């Protein structure tokens, strides 16, 4: 059957998709293009220059924000992935789990609420408890909203896994722990890794909660970028944005390739 009279095809959808992808990538292209602008004014092209990349990389405030973000994201990723893995094992594998649906809804609670409500909740919590350390506040808050993002890929992987392998291990007299460590964990590792990566990206990207909790010298990267945007557009901001995009694209591509290998 030739594509023209393939009944499944709809004329115009292809062209529409091309325009759509252009729309999706236009803003990204604009930021990258103007980051190489030698002119101080963003939209007046003054020739090619890497000057703003040098300015960005020698910006001490920016580097402090990057460090804060990385530290918070690392802690939140490890904590949320561990908690999510434990919960997923019980919710997918556990026998006689009571209130399974409600339990699962509780684990996914941050997804059911708008993030600003989550942010307000933790802000009020910390003010009631009297916790002042900005970093600790961020780590706790980020762990909370990262849990469902770590949980969902792990749950999907567990659900897709063949139970026979684990049972075979148990038949061969492996204890529960050994069967988990030698059979189950290696098999679900791609899901655990995908969950951890998602949690990391979500934490690095968070603006709403981090901005509301911004105190005690804990300014994350998105919050710092926000303060730069408030001062107006600048080629330095474009250079910082481009650098962030490069890192994001590398991470996304790694995740994509890892998933394809399975």
């Amino acid at each position, binding site marked *: 059957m030739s594509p023209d009279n393939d*009944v*499944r095809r*709809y004329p*115009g*959808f*292809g062209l529409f*998709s091309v325009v759509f992808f252009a*729309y*999706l990538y236009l*803003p*990204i292209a*604009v*930021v990258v293009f103007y980051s190489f602008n030698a002119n101080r*004014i963003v*939209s007046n092209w003054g020739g090619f220059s890497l000057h703003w990349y040098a300015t960005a990389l020698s910006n001490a405030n920016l580097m402090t924000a990057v460090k804060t973000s990385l530290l918070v994201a690392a802690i939140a990723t490890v904590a949320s992935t561990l*908690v999510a893995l*434990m919960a997923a*094992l*019980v919710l997918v594998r*556990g*026998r*006689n789990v009571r209130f399974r649906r409600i*339990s699962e809804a*509780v*684990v996914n*609670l*941050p997804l*059911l*609420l*708008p993030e*600003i*409500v989550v*942010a*307000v*909740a*933790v802000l*009020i*919590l910390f003010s009631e408890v009297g916790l002042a350390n900005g970093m600790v506040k961020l780590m*706790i808050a980020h*762990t*909370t909203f990262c*849990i469902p993002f770590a949980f969902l890929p792990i749950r999907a992987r567990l659900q897709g896994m063949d139970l026979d392998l684990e049972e075979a291990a148990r038949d061969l007299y492996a204890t529960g722990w050994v069967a988990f460590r030698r059979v189950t964990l290696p098999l679900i590792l791609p899901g655990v890794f995908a969950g951890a990566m998602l949690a990391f990206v979500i934490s690095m990207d968070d*603006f*709403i909660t981090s*901005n*509301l909790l911004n105190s005690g010298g804990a300014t994350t990267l*998105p919050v710092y*970028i*926000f303060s730069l*945007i408030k001062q107006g*557009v600048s080629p330095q*901001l474009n250079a910082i*944005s481009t650098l*962030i995009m490069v890192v*994001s*694209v590398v*991470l*996304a591509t790694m995740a*994509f390739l890892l998933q*394809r290998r399975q």
Partner: protein
Amino acid sequence: MKPSSKNPNWNILGLLPAHLIMLLTLIIPIGIIIVVSFSTRGPYGGFEYAFTTAPYKQLLFNDGWTGELEFNPQYLIVVARTLLLSAVTTSICLLLSFPVAYFIALQRPAIKVLLIYLVTLPFWVSMIVRVYSWIIILGKDGVIEKTLRGLGLVDQMDSLLFGNTAMLLGLVYSYIPLMILPIFASIEKLDPALIEASHDLYGNRFTTLRRVILPLTRPGMIAGAILVFVPSLGAVLEPTLLGGGKTMMMGNLIQLQFGGARNWPLGAAIAIVLMAAVMVFLIFQGLRSMRSEGLERAA
């Protein structure tokens, strides 16, 4: 010989950390938000536990010059704008996503994987960077204005930034990958034989689309609508950066009350209204999907 039957505490132990975190950092604090929304504003920001319905009254009324309550729609307008912009964002995302998702679903496997990767890629790029990029495009002396001036179409134009249109553009751009993915998944599951059967029964393309494809991909559209509508309702970055100070949505209004304005009870009351709107929508969608499942089972 299952671990859980031999040792029944495993279930509880495994779920305990997740449940404890949610209880301590979300469930109890949401209870406190409700309490705060009925509390009195503290003299230096924050709040004092003294019961009052003033924050909710403040959403609708102002204290007039002589002390009587005067109806003041300013916050109601923000609520209405939030609901409307989120609904329009969801509809535009639906309209744009369907043809793209359908086109991708028809490609060869290798190209399909690549196109899905390209759809998700912007989503990995920091949200704030993606919203910021629209400032360069829409702003004064921005890409659009320069292009239009270069073509001689306009000499002077009002900034495209800081209005409902800019917010809408930003919202659609931010959330559209969340709509394409579930629609794509449901189109992939569609049995091509059904489409061919419809054509064999003399249904033209339009009839087939309307009577076969759209109804069968509805679950994906509903999932996408939830994924786009809920975060749009609580959006903060798009209204703050693209909407400007005068065209607010509930998300940045809440943030303003907890940040600069330091009126926590009012902020808490708006957060409760926002949460209620999300819950009503989710329950409504849940009931609808339950009803359609019931119908399918009955048929």
